[in-house]
């Protein structure tokens, strides 16, 4: 049984496979680095580092390659089998074993982050308060119905259901209409149609969507949609434009119900509210370069407010969320102007795992190589 298991595990745990995988990971890292000159980081990450397979274009020649995600999964299996399960248990290997454990732990942290972390930002002007943060990249359709004294009904549609699926029909029992996605654009700007030019896209209420090339910084892409609402009772259609750049939602009356429909960056609720009391940019004397910038905020949790300062290198950690100082604006603000602060919000169950992994790996490496060094120095001493 043992032999059979060994035979099965051997190819997965071979050092030859380790070398091949490390070579592939090096190649992908190198290509993914160079590609960032031409492609945005977000797209490079998706193509090279979060994929199973990809095609890299070396000039006009297509080169099929495994994606770094696949390579790292295989490396994990290889390391677990060859570097832990099948590693000979002897004193000289203890350091290597500990190091391998640390690297496995680091890879686990990476996988948890990839699948379970969520990030976005909360951007506030001084004096503003928010109890949600929003995604940098993802969009959502949000529908509101005014129910009078009963409040507001809210329905959200995640972007998987509309952005990559033109022609899709979005249905809900509570809606008096179906939503048909006529055309979806990852980056577009709504414009007024003037009499002096023609466009090859639909013009709705004098406006049309001007498609823009994808921005290298994916967070700058602003999605927009042409949608049609199909009345469930009489089948009549109304076409409209939804855009994350719009300042107001599209308001429609269908069968006596009033609905407001909007497209916006996906939002996530915070377990507390955060109010920006003051933002400070402290410049080096005599120049415009900031030596530090920080946000004084009030965090209100279950009615209890408390003061916090969030600065570069000193985030706020609360309720499994980490809030970081990211940027500020407006860039052209003059002294005395009202400023806004952008804080990144991250929910990552593996937040501190890399630190633990680092300690384990460092301990393993020091143990292993100090053993080797001692042996080397002794051997040299004898030789001398």
């Amino acid at each position, binding site marked *: 049984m043992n032999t059979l298991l060994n035979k099965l595990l051997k190819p997965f745990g071979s050092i030859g496979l380790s070398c091949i995988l490390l070579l592939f990971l090096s190649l992908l890292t190198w290509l993914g680095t160079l590609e960032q000159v031409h492609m945005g980081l977000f797209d490079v990450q998706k193509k090279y580092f979060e994929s199973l397979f990809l095609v890299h274009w070396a000039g006009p020649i297509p080169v099929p390659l495994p994606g770094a995600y696949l390579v790292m999964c295989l490396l994990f299996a290889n390391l677990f089998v060859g570097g832990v399960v099948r590693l000979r248990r002897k004193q000289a290997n203890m350091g290597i074993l500990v190091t391998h454990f640390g690297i496995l732990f680091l890879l686990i942290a990476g996988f948890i982050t990839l699948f379970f972390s969520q990030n976005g930002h909360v951007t506030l002007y001084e004096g503003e308060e928010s109890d949600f943060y929003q995604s940098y990249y993802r969009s959502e359709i949000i529908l509101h119905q005014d129910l009078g004294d009963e409040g507001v009904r809210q329905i959200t549609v995640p972007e998987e259901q509309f952005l990559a699926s033109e022609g899709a029909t979005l249905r809900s029992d509570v809606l008096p209409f179906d939503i048909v996605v006529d055309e979806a654009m990852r980056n577009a700007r709504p414009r007024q149609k003037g009499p002096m030019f023609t466009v090859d896209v639909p013009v709705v209420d004098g406006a049309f969507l001007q498609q823009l090339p994808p921005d290298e910084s994916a967070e700058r892409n602003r999605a927009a949609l042409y949608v049609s609402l199909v009345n469930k009772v009489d089948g009549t259609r109304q076409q409209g434009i939804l855009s994350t750049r719009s300042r107001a939602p599209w308001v429609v009356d269908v069968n006596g119900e009033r609905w407001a429909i909007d497209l916006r960056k996906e939002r996530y609720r915070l377990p507390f509210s955060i109010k920006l009391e003051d933002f400070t940019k402290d410049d080096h004397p005599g120049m415009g*370069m900031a*030596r530090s910038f920080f946000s004084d905020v009030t965090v209100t949790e279950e009615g209890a407010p408390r003061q916090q300062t969030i600065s570069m*290198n000193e985030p706020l950690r609360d309720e499994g969320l980490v809030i970081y100082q990211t940027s500020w604006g407006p860039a052209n603000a003059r002294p005395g102007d009202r400023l806004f602060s952008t804080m990144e919000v991250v929910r990552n169950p593996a937040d501190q795992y890399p630190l633990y992994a680092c300690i384990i790996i460092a301990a393993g490496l020091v143990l292993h190589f100090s053993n080797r060094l001692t042996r080397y120095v002794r051997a040299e001493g004898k030789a001398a």
Partner: protein
Amino acid sequence: MTLLRWTTLAVMTTALLATLTTPAQATPWQQAPGADAEVEQADDAHDGHSDHSQHMDPPPFRVGPWSEADIANAESLPIQDGGRVKPLHTFASFTLLRYSGKRSVETAAGEKLSPVEWLLDTMFFADRSRDYPVFLVSNLKVLEAMGLDTEGLKPRDRYSFNTLAIDDQGTGINKLFELAREFGMIDPKQRTLVQDQLYSLAGSIDDYNYRLAGSALMLALVPPDTTDPAVDEWTTGNALFGLGMEGKELPAEHDQALRSIIGLSRSAGVADEFSAHLSTLNHTTVALAKARGEYESTELELGYYKAGWIAKSKILFLLGFLVTAILWLRPRNMIAYRLGWVLVAAATAALITAIVYRCVIRGRPPISTLYESVIFVTAFGATVGLVMEWINRQRIGLSAAAIVGVIGVYIASGYEILDKQDTMPSLVAVLDTNFWLATHVTCIAIGYSAGLLSALLGSIYLLGKITGRKKDDPTFYRNLTRMTYGVLAFSVIFSIVGTILGGIWANESWGRFWGWDPKENGALLIVLSQVLILHGRMGGYLREFGINIAAAFSGTVIAFSWWGVNLLGVGLHSYGFTSGISQALWSYYGFQWLLCAAGLYVLMREKRLKAAS
């Protein structure tokens, strides 16, 4: 308004009118007598008496060299520039370096001026200074674009302000500024080389002509008159003068400093009076800076630059390298061996002293800039080389230390000249953390250093094999390989730990451990290449020859990570961008790859011969 304030104002007005002539115009003592007389009358009308110095008729040009006392007083003046307080010596030195690409000026008369002497001439004998060849032009197309005749000119030369100014017929600096305004609208990454050079030259000339030439009024030489650290912006003579004009009463020290600054311009050429003003300005501003606790590091910095630790280290490394080269031919020559030891150890000590000085001056860990990373990597590499030599006494570690030292200090000097910026700059907000600079950055630099030393040892192995040296001494090559591998293993520890620490820092600052940013990827590439070598050896894929080829190749991976990714111009680590180093970098890549290819050829040949026999 008190009589004192009226007097002050009147003196200031007169002096400023006299000194703040338009830059291209003549200095006070060249004005028409009538103009002077008018100023004096205005002065007399205010305070009822004339200042003695107004009756002086200082010579338009400096007579004789600057006195040692004047130079000492000038170079130790504290100045706030680039967000920090530094000695005027440093300011002059880097300003001249930025304009001229070197730290001295040779006048047409053959006089060689130090940066401080040049700055004093520029501020107080501007007409003379405008004839000094200080503006480096590295491309004749720059001059052609300015409309100047380039017939018979060298492709790379230094020109004086007056040479470039020519006249206002559409040629010279008017055209230069017109072009600079146009090119300023272009994204720096999109500018052509000539556009970039024109823009840079315009910046230098603008800075020279409108900030420095003619007086010291535009320099932030006066500390605040409070010890409150929240008030941290120093002021210029010009700003103080403005306050006086608004009727605000200046604190006594500021009043004194302003009088001295103005007095300097008025008394230039009158040696005793000028020296007295300079000495008073020095004492006043130094006392203010000391009261604020801002002068200790300035004094230390002056001592650091004047001692020239890195220049000393360069000479010692060079001598050490020459002496160790003798050992390659005569390994048993004990005189050369001991002398080599002394020279390389002394050079390393000088470099470590420089690093310690810089740490104390900046109150920072050893590395916070690319320049500092070079001197740290060099010092660490040389130290490891010496430790290796101490352990096995095979002359290899000593030679490697000397080679690392020579190359490192030359790169440091070259980078300083190329970058032309203060090597102790103010840091961007994300770098304002001594903990992460001390841990992540230091670990990574140790990884670079040991990795490059390992690449050097691998390259020595390959060179030996390619040239057929010590053909009959397999022990030599075996020992060399053990060293290559040992140093590489040492590097792996720091590369891995440093890279993960960088991720943890990124998690603290930017909210993510890993973002596949070019600098992060560069660090990962080093780790992967080194781990690959360790596993290749363990799996039997790399033996003696293979380990050395791979180690030599991994040197290029480190160079790519350390310098190469900075050339890409993308990513969050924008504080580390570099330009103008691609030629040196490609030379290194080319040399190492050629060496690896030749090594591979020799390896194949050896295998064939073995198989045949």
